[in-house]
């Protein structure tokens, strides 16, 4: 924003005159010549908007006509571009009409003749204004009267070269109430008759003192324009001769075919003198009633977004627009009627008849195909959920576990070592039913899952007390219990008979009875107990096969634990937890100790999550702990 006194190139700012959406207008004076000008400076640094302004300047600079505000130079200041324009010391027509109402008819017709002459000059130069309205007509005092000058060619369209200038399809230009209906549809495909429409609206204002359309909202305004729903001139201003009223109403015809084809035809109808000439004598005869001295108000409306902002320079046209828009015909704007000025569109295409873009129905097919796929998936999901509950995924491990469980029911009570069951896809143990005592008997040794015979896959509920093992992080009732698969009789807290089960090592310092051994006693995993070894009378040590899918909860959230053996005594596990709307997955690896009843896993990756769990009463219970945390979340899973 410039301040009074600022120096811009060779000019000094004297006053701020007004602003629009993208520009400010100042009164400036040449510091050497002393001449006064208007300077329209961009308010934004935008390449495309600057190009529009320059285009406006080029058009007006080449329209050397007393009825058009002259542009004389282009100014650059701190990266902002400005147009140096003729300074008009009057006001815009809309302000004057708003203040004084309609002038006497002769003066109104004289003023309109000047406006018509300026527009005709633009048409002769191959330029359509496309935003003609009282706000874009400046009244410059001259003698006792005023001279009307057309300004703001910011959204003008060059029609002189076919295809030379077009604008983006979506650029609506003009001002509702003064804009031709077909321009609202497609501003790129209008001809001189669009300006004729606007001239008719201006003439309506001049003879009646009010705009042709005065609806409550833009929507109803545009609808009224499209239907030609305005009050007849005769109803508003009965003094206006019928011929003038007829001319106005013909200009405002919704269908361009019903309008005058160009400014010449309009001038003929109004003045009958063969052409829209600019008559300076007439200008001088415009009465003082319209002479409102004062600084020019360039009317911010003339600069609003609907004006210069929306014009698009030819440099940013896209090939598709070129292909999709009929080329302009130099004849369509020719005021002398030599061209095809009567055709609705330059190449004979009726603009109103142009169909709206319709990509066709293919998109719907994509939509419905996708919907069908989703519905099919929904059906599959419901089928899986409702009719195959518990067996969504065939799990041979689970089936095998069931067999083992039934065996346990009959055998575990006798504490007799059970032979291991051959596991599909895995090499059988070196010696069926026998276990390398070095694996399960030693403290902290790993028991390969399923490699050992013994207590079965799913231990039956414990017949003896199984006190929870102290785990500071685990909530009551879910604390893991460490099974004692082999406990010396002296440590049998329940008084039961010690089972000749595999030895137990509880690295956590606690141990509980193996739930799978109904007769097993519960024992504290004292160091002494931990050293317990099966007596010579003990049979082959047993191990629990944890492999398979377990489901349960982690802090109430659905949890799935899949356990596989990775070989070398190690355990691989995948944990799925539904958290909110996402599944979190933890890939863990670790060992099963204590005959396969105690799991200690940690995450493969660097996430640092850890799982500690213990098999008890057919469930694995324990905690999942994040790296760096002291408290974990309790979990409990069972075989489905």
């Amino acid at each position, binding site marked *: 924003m410039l301040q009074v006194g600022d120096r811009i190139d060779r000019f000094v700012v004297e006053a701020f005159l007004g602003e629009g*959406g993208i520009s400010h207008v100042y009164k400036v004076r040449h510091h050497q010549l002393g001449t006064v000008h208007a300077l329209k400076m961009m308010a934004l640094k935008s390449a495309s908007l600057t190009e529009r302004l320059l285009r406006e300047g080029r058009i007006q600079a080449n329209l050397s006509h007393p009825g058009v505000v002259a542009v004389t130079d282009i100014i650059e200041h701190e990266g902002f571009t400005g147009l140096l324009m003729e300074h008009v010391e009057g006001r815009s027509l809309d302000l004057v009409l708003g203040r004084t109402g309609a002038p006497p008819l002769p003066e109104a017709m004289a003023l309109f003749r000047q406006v018509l002459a300026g527009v005709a000059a633009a048409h002769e130069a191959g330029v359509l204004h496309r935003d003609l309205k009282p706000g874009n007509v400046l009244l410059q005092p001259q003698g006792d009267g005023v001279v009307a000058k057309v300004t703001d060619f910011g959204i003008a369209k060059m029609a002189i070269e076919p295809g030379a200038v077009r604008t983006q399809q979506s650029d609506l230009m003009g*001002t509702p109430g003064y804009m031709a209906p077909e321009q609202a549809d497609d501003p790129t495909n209008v001809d001189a008759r669009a300006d004729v429409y606007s001239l008719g609206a201006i003439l309506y204002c001049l003879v009646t003192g009010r705009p042709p359309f005065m609806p409550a909202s833009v929507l109803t305004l545009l609808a009224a324009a499209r239907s030609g729903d305005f009050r007849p001139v005769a109803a508003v201003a009965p003094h206006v001769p019928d011929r003038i009223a007829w001319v106005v109403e013909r200009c405002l015809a919704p269908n361009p075919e019903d309008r005058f084809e160009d400014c010449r035809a309009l001038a003929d109808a109004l003045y009958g003198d063969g052409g829209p000439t600019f008559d300076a004598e007439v200008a001088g005869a415009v009465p003082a009633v319209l002479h409102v001295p004062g600084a020019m108000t360039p009317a911010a409306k003339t600069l609003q977004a609907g004006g210069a902002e929306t014009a698009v320079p030819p440099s940013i046209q896209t090939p598709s627009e070129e292909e999709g828009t009929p080329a302009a015909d130099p004849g369509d704007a020719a005021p002398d009627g030599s061209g095809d000025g009567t055709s609705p569109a330059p190449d004979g295409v009726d603009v109103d008849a142009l169909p709206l873009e319709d990509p066709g129905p293919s998109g*719907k097919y994509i*939509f419905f195909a996708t919907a069908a*796929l989703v519905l099919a998936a*929904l059906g599959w999901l419901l089928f899986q959920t409702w009719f195959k509950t518990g067996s969504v995924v065939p799990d041979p491990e689970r089936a095998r576990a069931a067999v083992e469980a039934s065996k346990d029911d009959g055998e575990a009570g006798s504490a007799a070592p059970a032979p291991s069951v051959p596991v599909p896809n895995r090499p059988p143990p070196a010696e069926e039913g026998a276990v390398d005592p070095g694996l399960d008997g030693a403290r902290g040794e790993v028991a390969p899952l399923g490699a050992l015979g013994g207590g079965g896959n799913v231990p039956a509920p414990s017949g003896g007390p199984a006190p929870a093992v102290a785990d500071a992080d685990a909530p009551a009732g879910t604390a893991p219990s460490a099974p004692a698969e082999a406990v010396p009789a002296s440590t049998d807290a329940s008084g039961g008979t010690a089972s000749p089960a595999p030895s137990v090592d509880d690295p956590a310092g606690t141990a509980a009875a193996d739930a799978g051994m109904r007769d097993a006693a519960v024992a504290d995993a004292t160091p002494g107990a931990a050293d317990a070894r099966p007596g010579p009378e003990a049979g082959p040590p047993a191990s629990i096969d944890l492999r398979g899918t377990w489901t349960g909860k982690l802090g*109430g959230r659905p949890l799935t634990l899949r356990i596989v053996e990775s070989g070398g005594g190690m355990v691989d596990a995948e944990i799925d937890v539904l958290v909110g709307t996402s599944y979190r997955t*933890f890939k863990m690896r670790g060992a099963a100790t204590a005959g396969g009843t105690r799991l200690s896993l940690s995450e493969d990756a660097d996430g640092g999550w850890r799982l500690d769990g213990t098999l008890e009463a057919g469930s694995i219970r324990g905690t999942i702990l994040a790296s760096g945390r002291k408290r974990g979340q309790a979990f409990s899973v069972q075989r489905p």
Partner: protein
Amino acid sequence: MLSSSLASLAVALSSTAHAGSGPWVVSPGDLSLYAGTEYQRIEELVIHDDGEEVDVIPVDDGLETFGVKAIASYGLRERIELQLEVPWYRVEANRQEGAVCTSLGLQACATTEGLGVISTQVKGLVLDELAGSPVSLSVAGLLRFGAFTSDERARLTNISEGTTDLGGSLAVGRSGGLGDGFWSAWTEVGWRHRFPNAERGGIGVPGGEMTADADVLAGLRRWWSIGPSVSMLYRPDGYDFVSFDATSPDRLGELRIFTTRIGGKLILRSNERVSVVASAHKAMIVRNNPTPISLGLGLSVQPRRKRAE
């Protein structure tokens, strides 16, 4: 954030629950895929002037939107997720020669079809309920690219307004057990700066937008959840419908809008990390915007990744 409304005049496509909603993230290396359809029907526009509702006008025989949306979420590392959303829409008017459609000009109701705003966001889980925090809390950075929707931005049937946007969001949620079932609740607020196409009266057009979403879902079995859902979009800077510049291609971006949609969602889950999501919403509190009914149906899959050896 990505599930928020389609930001245009037709702002209110369904905010569909999917695997990326809420504060939660997928695990490192995990991929979550969502594919769904959306349908919206606009029958009325609420017109404001000077802050007051002045009219509710029928949009001729209605505008209909058919959408297909794909969302992929990938766990970059522990508690950090990258999400990409690619929508496609077809918006059409049932009667293009109706009063509103023809009055607005600029092919206001011409059928529009094509890609919507492509969005990507990086979400970081700051507080993790699995690790013992009382809630899950995430922050996200958002980049939306919709320049290719620019040519049709003046239409009532536009897909978006042709801008590139930068934004961020904060989401808080919690989930847990409900008997044999499961519940989850989350809310998310976000802001997106829209790099304006134009300026009018010192206001960038379109202006920045605030979004807010909230869901509460619960089910007595783990395989289903159902509950209410609310979504809000607010663009504080702009003009009321009556005074917007109908001649500008950015006329819809000029609108000062507010819309709140209220509805519900149903999620069905399998044991194999496959979910079906259905939603229905109705815009209830609206300013300078339509009052559509929106329906959504989608499929969310989190395929299991192979263990790295």
